[in-house]
């Protein structure tokens, strides 16, 4: 079994821990009703992502991965809650979402199945890449994050959890990315961060507009535009 660059078993184990926490946070976003708790799970997930980036970038030292970690902390842990706090009214956070599409136990069961499926999806890719080390953990965890985020989108009807679902999907892609594409050009990282900031801002503005115009942020219940096939 070849070792991956200068990765030590300790870092490997810590990275696995970060991956585990990442999945737990993704499950938390699926399973909590309250919007604020959802946001907390998302922040927790972003911190695990940054931790994994710092661990993988520690030895050999990688400016790229350190930058990814810092960018993540700044955009998702500091900027996002601050901006949402300014744009979205307090009342939205304390709302409990009762009317999810599936019940929470069913959701969690499905989410677990998705996580296991993600692992098996990744096996042939890992085999084809002949790589041990970081991608062995980060790729399946990242794919699971992507799938769980998509499931959140399908299951939640509130605007903020849907936004968090989208961001959790991107977190999933990034979690895999720090292992499989650690030397992405720095300009791409900066562009990604910029894109993320604008995206968060735009969706925040949109959420506020929906809240003001429609009087609710239960975007899943909006259906004034369906016409074809429902006549």
């Amino acid at each position, binding site marked *: 079994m070849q070792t991956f660059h200068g990765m030590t078993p300790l870092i490997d184990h810590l990275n696995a821990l970060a991956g585990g926490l990442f999945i737990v946070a993704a499950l938390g976003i699926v399973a909590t009703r309250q919007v604020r708790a959802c946001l907390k799970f998302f922040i927790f997930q972003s911190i695990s992502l940054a931790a994994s980036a710092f661990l993988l970038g520690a030895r050999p030292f990688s400016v790229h991965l350190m930058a990814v970690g810092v960018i993540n902390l700044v955009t998702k842990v500091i900027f996002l809650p601050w901006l949402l706090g300014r744009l979205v009214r307090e009342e939205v956070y304390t709302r409990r979402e009762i009317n999810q599409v599936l019940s929470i136990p069913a959701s969690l069961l499905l989410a677990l199945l998705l996580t296991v499926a993600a692992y098996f999806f990744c096996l*042939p*890719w890992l*085999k*084809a*890449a002949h790589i041990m080390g970081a*991608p062995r953990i980060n790729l399946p965890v*990242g*794919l699971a994050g*992507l799938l769980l*985020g*998509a499931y959140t*989108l399908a299951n939640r009807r509130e*605007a903020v959890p*849907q936004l968090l679902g*989208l961001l959790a*999907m*991107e977190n*999933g*892609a990034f979690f*895999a*990315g720090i292992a*499989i*594409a650690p*030397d*992405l*050009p720095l*300009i*791409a990282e900066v*562009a*990604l961060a*910029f*894109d993320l900031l*604008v*995206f968060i801002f*735009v*969706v925040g*503005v*949109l959420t506020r*507009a*929906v809240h003001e*115009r*429609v009087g609710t942020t239960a*975007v899943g219940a*909006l*259906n*004034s*535009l369906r*016409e*074809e*096939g429902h*006549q």
Partner: protein
Amino acid sequence: MILLAIVTIPLAVAVLSAFFRSQRLASAMTFMAAVAILGLSAGAALNVITSPNHLLVAIPHWLALDALSAVILLLVAVVNLTAALFSMGYMHFRDPGGVRRYYLNYNLFVFSMLLVPLIQEPSLVWVAVELTTVFSVLLVGFEDTQEALEAAWKYVVLTIMGAAIALFGFLMLYWAARQADVPHHTWSGLLAVAPQMSPVLLKAAFVFILVGLGAKIGLVPLHTWLPDAHSQAPTPVCALLSGVETTTVLYVILRLLPVVSQAPAIHAHTWILAFGLISVGTAAFLLINVRDYKRLFAFSTVEHMGIIMAAAGLGGASAHAAAMLQIIAHSFTKSFCFYTAGGLLLEMRTRDISSVRGLIRREPFTASALLLGGLAIAGAPPFALFLSEFSVLRAGLNRGQYLAAGLLVIFIAIAFSAIMNHISRMVFGPDEGGGSLRSGSLPLSCKITLIIAAIPVIVLGIYIPGALQKLIALAAAVIGG
């Protein structure tokens, strides 16, 4: 230098229109910028045609233009020009704050669309594609009605979800290329190392990118946001969204096609063909029941994106050339259709098909435009889309893809009759109890736009300039024979 100027102009105008309070100035600047961008793009495209290696490089490995990207660049530039002109009249009676926000977002949106074909590094192309969504969301929700906001929400959720899936694909692509020791992670670098890439990884990357970007192109089953967003946005934005934004994203798939088709085990062409056919078929049947004429044109975009994908999936130089012609003809025709629909909306104040009857007697100018646009977009001869659809079918028969060609004929015929059924009733139908509808007038700039936008729609079916033919052939060669 030209390429750098092309992308900096809209960015500069966006910043300026945010600073200056005059809405007249903002619209004039946007229009002049559009003229400049079109001039520069045409110059750059000519440069590509005449230069020996058919390449125009601004920053090596980052910013360059080849024949395929030149086609997309030109289309964005042309539709941007007509949309800027149409915006002048369309935005005239809005409140100044709204107009300023509109032009800020509008120019940023154009900026992001111009970036996509020019950038050479795939992960940055992904960023540019996501920026096209991010900058256009507030334009889709611009009218600030419940419907518009709902459309904007669906738009952002589904396309960003697709973008996240595509991002996973782009990162896997990067992984596969890195293992093959790609010297520069650019489109041409990928093409060079494609034979050394692991087919398993490449296939996974391709499927993620196809599904993810498919949401943005409007491919079934992730198309549900498209008719909402493309019908609720202000008309000039509809023209940009339907006419060029979808095509700009489709371009990324076309870019990837020669890379993935080097590994036959991936069956990339079959994937694209299947996705395309499903979209054409679904859209054709959905067209029958539409009640809103802007949605009619939006569903027709799904149909045409499907035809372009199917054409690219048939494979071979002639099918690829047909796909390029279809891309060009669709952009011109669809933007013209949306200008017509926008004019109609200004006059009739309704989007309901059944409320518009006997238009030819009330508004002969708009009625003729609607008839022209309907015939052209449905693919009637002698318009360019007839030509390109015919070439697609011929290419399919030549390649022995009888099933695909047969299905395409059936779906295109259904879509044709559905579109013409709606349009002919609106134009010629008996005017029962009409006249109760308030009739507005069409601003001058909108009339001029309709006339200018009609020119390529009419001309391209009869005569394709030599330079454009050369560009189409070169672009088809880039996609691969």
